[in-house]
Each structure stands twice: as structure tokens, then as C-alpha cells.
């Protein structure tokens, strides 16, 4: 177990002039489960590989347990990694795969066998110990990859999209297993994924990355309730937050012909910033159907998910809004309805150009 610190770490793309990771700074506590999330090309995998020593740290530094890892080769970092494609040794049995690191450390065969069997029990792999990876299913292989990491009892777990090759149902199952396992073992874990649902459900804290730069590093709740910029706002949450650029009026923002009212504080901040336009964000569940007041919209599509329904609409000026509603009382296509902000609904305001949070 150890704390991890990224200090302005950067990594250059091989053979190019672009930075894969740009001055990343993160303070990860000992025992914490941190998720690095972002779209493809955001540098999250690279950041993880820098930690593991598989990519060079071109600028800045990374510390594990207070020790600078610059120049320290992977094999000396005491990190275990679960690869996206598992990277199991094809010519070794499951037991040999899991025991390899221990063998390299010179641990006796008996001791190895014991530890491997322990880990196998936790992961339900005991009956597969003598099989080779080719004879295992995807889910089983994934567990062997985890087992290989656990057996080593390292300082840090690195996981690079370990669930992305599993089918949906298995993914949900394994997700909870991994989270429970980490809590039980208490090992500091850095987990990379592009799936924001995984990030939100598994992480103690989540770091959102985009084009190599850190957007926000906070707990899932914080990310959901107070995204630091428009990108994070649009990335976290499904269906995505409604984000539209709207003109500012004296009382609020103009959608179509109607005005959606804003709080005093928010209006003050807007006028202080001298903005005539704002990137307005509101989550679908913060919008509700109403009979009077609010904004007039036309229904384009209704998605009925059984427990809830989402109504896709557009307002007169072309602004598109998604709102959540009760599936039993959902409107129909081409209906004209009115949407208003939920009484306790939170509104997010972002700068129209930089995307930074204003309120």
C-alpha cells in the first residue's frame, strides 16, 4: 500500500510532437480506489502506463510511497497490472501464471502454491488451476489476470480497462466483485476506463481526462453535482446533461420565446463576467413536464425504459432538451408540451468559450 503522486507528469507521443499526457498532477491516498476516465485519446491509459513504468516520464515526476519513480524500471516498482487483453502467458497454466512473479522473487514452491490457492479461492478459480489460458472463457481469463495481480500483494494495482472485453452482464457482475475485492485488500488502485458508469460506481475519486489534461479530480458525487467545466458536465451522467448555449436576459436565459429564470446569485455572476451568452446546463431529471409556465417544446422522441422515460424535445429556436418523466404519463411524438426547471433543480452555468464553471 502506498500513496501515489503525479507531479506535473507529461508524456510525449512516440514519434510525434503531441503530448499524450500534459502536466498531470494527482494526489492519490494510500488505499484509495481512483478511476481515470475519459474518451479515447484522453491519455488515461498512458497515464496509467507511466505509473507502471511502461511509458517514459518525459516531464515532471511520479512518486509511489514518497519515492520518485523516474528511471526505476517496471520490475522494481512493485506494481501489479491487469491488462485490457489480460496478457496471460499462453504456455503456462493458470497456477503458473499466477505464481510467476513469486517464482521470480525466489519464493519456494510450497509457499507459492499456498498463495496461489488462496487467491484462486477468492476468485473462484480453484478448478482451473491446471488449465492453460487457451482453454478458458473470457471471464475466467479476466479473473486469472486479477489473480495474478492479487497474489503479488503489491503496493499498487493498475487496471487498464479490464472489463471492456466482457459481455454486458458479466461486466456488471465483475465490476462489483472488483470493487469489493479492493475494499477487502485495501491496496491503492488506479483504474482506467472509458465507461463513466464504471467510474462513478467503483471509484472513491475519479479523475476526468481530456486530450491529456486533467479536467477534474473529485468524488463521483462532486463530479455529478458540481462539474468543473462543460466537458465534465457532458461526460458524466447518462443520459448526458443538456448543454446549450443560450442568450442571457435580465431574468434568466432565453429558450425559444420563453425565459427560464435563474437565481439572483447566478445572474449577478453572469453580469459580473460581462457575458451576453452562457453555456447552460441542466440534467434531464431536473426538468419536468408542466402545464403552465416554463418553455414550450415539441416532442421528437420518447424513450421508455420501463422505470422511467426520457423525452427528447426541441424548442422553437432549435434548442434541444431532454427531460425525464414518468413512463405512464409520457407525452407522445409531435406533442407540444411545456418543460420547466424542477423546483429544487440545479442549474449549471459555464463560460460559453472556455467551458469553465461560473456558478
Amino acid at each position: 500500500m502506498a500513496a501515489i503522486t503525479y507531479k506535473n507528469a507529461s508524456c510525449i507521443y512516440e514519434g510525434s510532437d503531441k503530448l499524450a499526457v500534459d502536466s498531470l498532477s494527482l494526489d492519490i491516498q494510500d488505499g484509495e480506489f481512483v478511476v481515470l476516465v475519459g474518451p479515447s485519446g484522453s491519455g488515461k491509459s498512458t497515464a496509467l502506463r507511466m505509473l507502471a513504468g511502461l511509458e517514459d516520464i518525459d516531464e515532471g515526476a511520479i512518486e509511489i510511497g514518497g519515492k520518485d519513480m523516474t528511471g526505476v524500471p517496471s520490475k522494481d516498482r512493485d506494481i501489479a497490472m491487469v491488462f485490457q487483453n489480460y496478457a496471460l502467458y499462453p504456455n503456462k497454466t493458470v497456477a503458473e501464471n499466477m505464481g510467476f512473479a513469486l517464482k521470480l522473487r525466489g519464493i519456494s514452491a510450497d509457499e507459492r502454491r499456498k498463495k496461489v490457492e488462496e487467491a484462486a479461492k477468492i476468485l473462484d478459480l480453484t478448478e482451473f488451476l491446471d488449465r492453460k489460458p487457451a482453454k478458458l472463457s473470457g471471464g475466467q481469463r479476466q479473473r486469472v489476470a486479477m489473480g495474478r495481480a492479487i497474489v503479488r500483494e503489491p503496493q499498487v494495482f493498475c487496471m487498464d480497462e479490464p472489463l471492456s472485453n466482457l459481455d454486458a452482464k458479466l461486466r456488471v457482475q465483475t465490476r462489483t466483485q472488483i470493487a469489493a475485492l479492493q475494499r477487502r485488500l485495501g491496496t491503492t488502485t488506479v483504474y482506467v476506463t472509458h465507461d463513466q458508469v464504471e467510474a462513478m460506481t467503483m471509484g472513491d475519486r475519479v479523475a476526468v481526462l481530456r486530450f491529456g489534461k486533467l479536467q477534474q479530480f473529485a468524488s463521483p458525487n462532486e463530479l455529478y453535482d458540481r462539474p468543473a467545466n462543460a466537458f465534465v458536465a457532458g461526460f458524466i451522467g447518462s443520459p448526458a446533461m443538456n448543454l446549450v448555449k443560450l442568450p442571457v436576459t435580465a431574468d434568466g436565459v432565453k429558450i425559444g420565446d420563453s425565459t427560464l429564470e435563474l437565481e439572483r446569485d447566478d445572474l449577478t455572476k453572469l453580469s459580473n463576467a460581462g457575458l451576453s451568452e452562457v453555456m447552460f446546463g441542466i440534467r434531464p431529471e431536473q426538468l419536468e413536464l408542466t402545464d403552465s409556465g416554463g418553455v414550450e417544446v415539441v416532442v421528437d422522441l420518447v424513450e421508455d425504459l420501463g422505470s422511467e422515460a426520457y423525452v427528447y424535445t426541441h424548442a422553437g429556436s432549435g434548442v434541444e432538451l431532454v427531460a425525464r418523466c414518468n413512463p405512464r404519463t409520457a407525452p407522445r411524438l409531435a406533442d407540444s408540451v411545456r418543460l420547466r426547471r424542477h423546483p429544487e433543480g440545479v442549474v449549471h452555468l459555464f463560460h460559453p468559450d472556455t467551458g469553465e464553471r461560473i456558478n
Partner: protein
Amino acid sequence: MTVTADTEADASQLAVAERVRKIREAQGAGVSRAEGWRRRGPLLPALIFMIVVTQIPFLFTLYYSTLSWNLVRPGSRQFVGLNNYIAVVKDSQFWTVALNTVVLIVVVVLVSAFLGLLLALLLDRAFLGRGVVRTLLITPFLVTPVAAALIWKTTILDATNGILNWVLSLVGIDKVDWIGQFPLTMVMVVLIWQWTPFMMLLILAGLQSMPRDILEAGRVDGAGAVQLFRELTLPHLRRFIELGVVLGAIYLVNTFDTIYMMTQGGPGIASANLPFYIYQRAFLGFDMGQAAAYAVVVVIFTMIIASFALRLIFKSFSGKEEAA
């Protein structure tokens, strides 16, 4: 996200590139040099071995080509500059032989590639005993060239008792002295016989590495068998055919065994290729200097053609890693 971010993005891109440059400078050459040697290490023994065994003799050949030197007359070595080369140019036989060489390589490579393609297509489908047929088909490639040439020359192509003439006599064609009348062609036939399996295996590899779903998509789109072949299969096979052609050509440049065994280059020089011709000059005529000059000329021509060929392999095969 917003349109105005574009110009900002350009400016920031430049800033990033500048930072990258600074970082790379700061990293310096020291560490990477040691790593460079560590990586080069395993390569060195093989590299040095090849340089010593192949390049040094060639340098000697260059040197010899400037001498007039006959092995049988010791002490006759003397420097004659480029006289040998002038003799090469003046030698009308040389050009005939050069033509033979080119014809031989081109015909053998193209015909065996074509036949190899047909055979590969045949073998691509499953049928009873496919494995056995494949075994039968690769055998010519395995047979020692001198043995193969011998068998063809005697039991098959012989004018009086050869099988070919016997078969032809069954359909009323008179006996032909194959080797006497068509020496170069016969050499080419044997070479084609030996190299077709090689081409077939390469192209078969190409056929079997082709994803079937593309063909299925084509069929659904309404393409017939010929169109599927022409539009989808053939382009995919191109890389493999190219590789076969280049590798085959490399080996065929040095054809010697077959000619030695079947025709000894004759009659006259009708079926001699450059290696055989040079061999005659050197080991039968013992005229080292002259032979060396021939050899150098051959090397120069080969290198010119080879550099085109090598670029071709590299171009088509640097993509191999991702595709295959």
C-alpha cells in the same frame, strides 16, 4: 466545442510543440545512447558475421577485376585497370548470356507465380485427401536441384527413352530432342516445376488469411465469383504474390545447379546464365581477372534491380504486421 477555440487551439498547439522540443532536448543523448547499444547488442554478431563473410570477398572481387590473372599461370598477375571491363562490354556472348539470365528469371517467376495461384485456389477448398495432395505438391521444392535436373534430363526428357516423348508418341507426335533443341526452355521447365510449390504455399497463406466475412458481404451485395476474385481476393493476395516474386527472383538469380546438370550451358551458350558463364570463365578457363570483371558487372545490375525489389517488399510488408 466552440468555433472561436480554433485559433486558440492552433496557438496552443505551437506552444505544445515547443514544450515537446524543450523536453526532448533536456532528456539528452546520454541515457538513450547506452540503451541504444544494449538494443543493438544482439544484432551485432549476425551483422558482423555477414559483413565479414559477404562484403569482404566482394571487395576482393573488385580488386581482382582490375587484374589480368590466370590461375594456371602463377606469377602472371598484373594490374590492367579497366581492361577487363572493356572486354566485358565487347564480349557479344556476355550480352546473350545476360539476356538468357533475365529471360530465365522473368519467365520462371511469372509462370510459377501464376501456376502457384491456380494451385493455391485449388487447395483452398476442402476435399477428400487435401493434406495428401498438399504433400505431393510441395515435394518438387524439396528435391535437391541437381537430383531433379538429373531425373528430368534422363528419364523424362531424353530423346530416345524419355517419358515425355513416349507420351507424345501416343498422340502421334514425333520424338523431339528436348534438351538439344530447347535447352533454355527445358531448364526453365524444371525450375518452374521446383518453384511453383513455393509460390503456391505463399499464396495459399494469403488466401487463408483472408477474412471470409468480406467475401460474404460481397456476395450479399450481388458480386459473382469472378468479380469477388478480381475485386476482393486478388488485391489481398497482391502482397503475398509480390513477396513470392521477389524472393523467387533473389534465389533464381543464382541458378546454377540446374544448368550445370542439364545442359552445361550449351549448346554453346544457348542456355548459360550469368553465374554459369562466370563459373566457366573462372573455374574452367581459370581466368580470374576477367571472371571478376563479369561478376562485378552482374552485381551492379543486380543491385539496381534489387533496390527496386527491396523497396517493394518493405512497402508491402511493413503493413503486414497490422493486417495479418
